[in-house]
């Protein structure tokens, strides 16, 4: 298969890694018999058995923590948390244990595990089921955070994450699961910590990640056609470690920057990027760095309110024009 969905790409990576390494096993709610809430693991329990594809009760703190312990004990767990919203229950395990164990214990033991979880909004799931919390993890030393936006990156980054010796928060997105694209065959690995220029441009750098990359790519065409603005789209892919070099190279060329994320702007990914650009690329800027993200409210249910809260294509377009012109 060379064409496929993000969902299929993830499943391919899981299957290949389960086959490659006996120590790799999957754990999470509804991933076996039910086939996965979003069908990422569909069928894997039949191929690999219940020892390797393990259904858990609704006990996020318990099984995420057990994943950490299993990793310390010599396994390579890939734990699925049904959506990023439910990961908050396991936050203590991730922040106080997974992120700190190697350092705190003087390097004596590591936590080679992957936590896969999707976030995202836009389909009326309301405040407690529509969050983008990847930035919370990206701000924590000791964790690795990746957020692929294409099927190819999903496959390559998941394989890299499973092979990595440190805890990885592998951030997926509900709106990306059906995204189609090229899925490289065989042992395709995308290195962690490398951003990707998804669309070259010369007038404006748009720094983004996850599903917003796809949205920005659609906006880029319109920017070019209707406003004569050539936007360069940088997909961060890894939030931690951050590939600032790719950003800096682009800023040097375009001298204008817009940061786009789905989550709240305050203290967000864009805030970090803007600060780094201010610090390291100040002389190349022709206009202030602009940021755009979700409205700072718990996501409302009602469609007109949800629409108003989302960084829609129209709002990104508008922000891109302002970023280029240097207007407020």
């Amino acid at each position, binding site marked *: 298969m060379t064409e496929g969905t993000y969902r299929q790409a993830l499943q391919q990576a899981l299957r290949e890694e389960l086959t490659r390494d006996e120590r790799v096993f999957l754990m999470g*709610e*509804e991933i076996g*018999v*039910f*086939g996965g*809430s979003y069908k990422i693991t569909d069928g894997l329990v039949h191929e690999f058995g219940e020892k390797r594809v393990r*259904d858990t*009760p*609704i*006990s*996020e*703190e*318990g099984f995420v923590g057990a994943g950490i312990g299993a990793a310390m004990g010599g396994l390579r767990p890939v734990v699925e948390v049904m959506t990023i*919203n*439910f990961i*908050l*229950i396991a936050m203590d395990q991730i922040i106080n244990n997974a992120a700190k164990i190697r350092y705190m214990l003087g390097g004596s033991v590591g936590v080679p595990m992957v936590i896969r979880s999707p976030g995202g909004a836009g*389909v*009326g*799931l*309301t*405040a*407690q*089921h529509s969050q983008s919390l990847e930035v919370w993890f990206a701000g924590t030393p000791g964790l690795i955070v990746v957020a692929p936006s294409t099927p190819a990156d999903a496959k390559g980054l998941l394989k890299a994450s499973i092979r990595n010796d440190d805890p990885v928060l592998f951030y997926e997105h509900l709106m990306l699961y059906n995204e189609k694209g090229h899925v490289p065959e065989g042992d395709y690995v995308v290195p962690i910590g490398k951003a990707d220029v998804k669309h070259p441009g010369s007038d404006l750098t748009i720094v983004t990640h996850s599903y917003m990359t796809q949205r920005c790519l659609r906006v880029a065409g319109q920017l070019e056609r209707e406003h004569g603005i050539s936007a360069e789209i940088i997909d961060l892919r890894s939030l931690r470690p951050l590939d600032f070099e790719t950003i800096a190279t682009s800023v040097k060329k375009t001298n204008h920057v817009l940061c786009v994320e789905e989550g709240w702007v305050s203290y967000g990914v864009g805030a970090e990027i803007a600060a780094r650009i201010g610090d390291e690329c100040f002389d190349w800027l022709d206009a202030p760095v602009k940021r755009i993200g979700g*409205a*700072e*409210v*718990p996501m*409302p*249910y*009602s*469609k*007109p*309110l949800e*629409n*108003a*809260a989302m960084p829609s294509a129209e709002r990104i377009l508008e922000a891109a024009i302002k970023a280029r012109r240097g207007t407020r």
Partner: protein
Amino acid sequence: MVEQSARTTEQPLPLPRSDLLHLLERMLLIRRFEEKTMEMLALNRIRGYCHWNIGEEASVVGSVAAMGQGDRLVTSYRDHGFAIARGTPAGAVMAELFGKEGGCAGGRGGSMHMVDVPRGFFGGYGIVGGHLPLATGLALAADYLGEDRAVVCAFGDGATNIGAFHESLNLSKLWNLPVVWLLTNNQYGMGTSVRRASAESELYKRACAYNMHAEQVDGMDVLSVYEATHRLLLRARKQHEPALLETLTYRYPGHSYADPGRSYRTKEEIDRWKQRDPIRLFQHYLEEYTSLEQSEFDAIEKHVDQIIEEAVSFAEESPFPSPDSLFQHLYAEESKS
């Protein structure tokens, strides 16, 4: 400390006939309301999730009917029926599902977050087990303020495996708080059966670990649920004793709209539970012990259909919230203006 209660039909009528008919009407209303939401989902009037109470009407109506006026309720996301049982107009629930201004949460919450604070319903919550600590706190507030009220906290079998369940039971017993933990055991949490998720699958027994009184009742029998809840609430209010009440029931449809509900359970199992349909069971009881006539039943059904029709019209006519109100209710100041 742990006992199983079962209703025998030889007992005298536990409630006046008119109240019994009201229970029947509420159960039918919930059934028809939920069926209507399925239609409205297909028409894209409703978005997001929809977790139905179909099959669980006796558990919902029996427990809520036993609540006193001052008692309080918190539930999981499977909450449409609880709002209706508590007296929230069906129109306000339907309008919430439509995302309209006239919804019980002004269209902000949707299916999972029904609310009716004037009627003591402090909300439906979307994170499994996340509302149990809130029930502890609501009971703490009542206790602290010397108020004569108790709290009913409804949650599913799956929620008993989350830490918050255990912490909440322990706190409520340790502090002698007036709360009834209503464990609606519909046999599955999504696609996972109780047996596959819980090392002790007799869930009410978990109360033992917290030295708490627990009962298990037939959740398809509205009067069993009513009687047990009524007694346990009285005890909670008078003696400040929390209790765990497990109702054994079944959800007929899938977990939510995206789940046909068939891959993890057999048709035989579903049919077996449907043979003890809570509405038909109660209808038969009323026929036998209160001489309910078919014509009376038909009249109730007609009334229910009319309520549903009016609920849909109300929801259709209610306006969408204005995008300008996006930041309203974020903090107290905003909500005052």
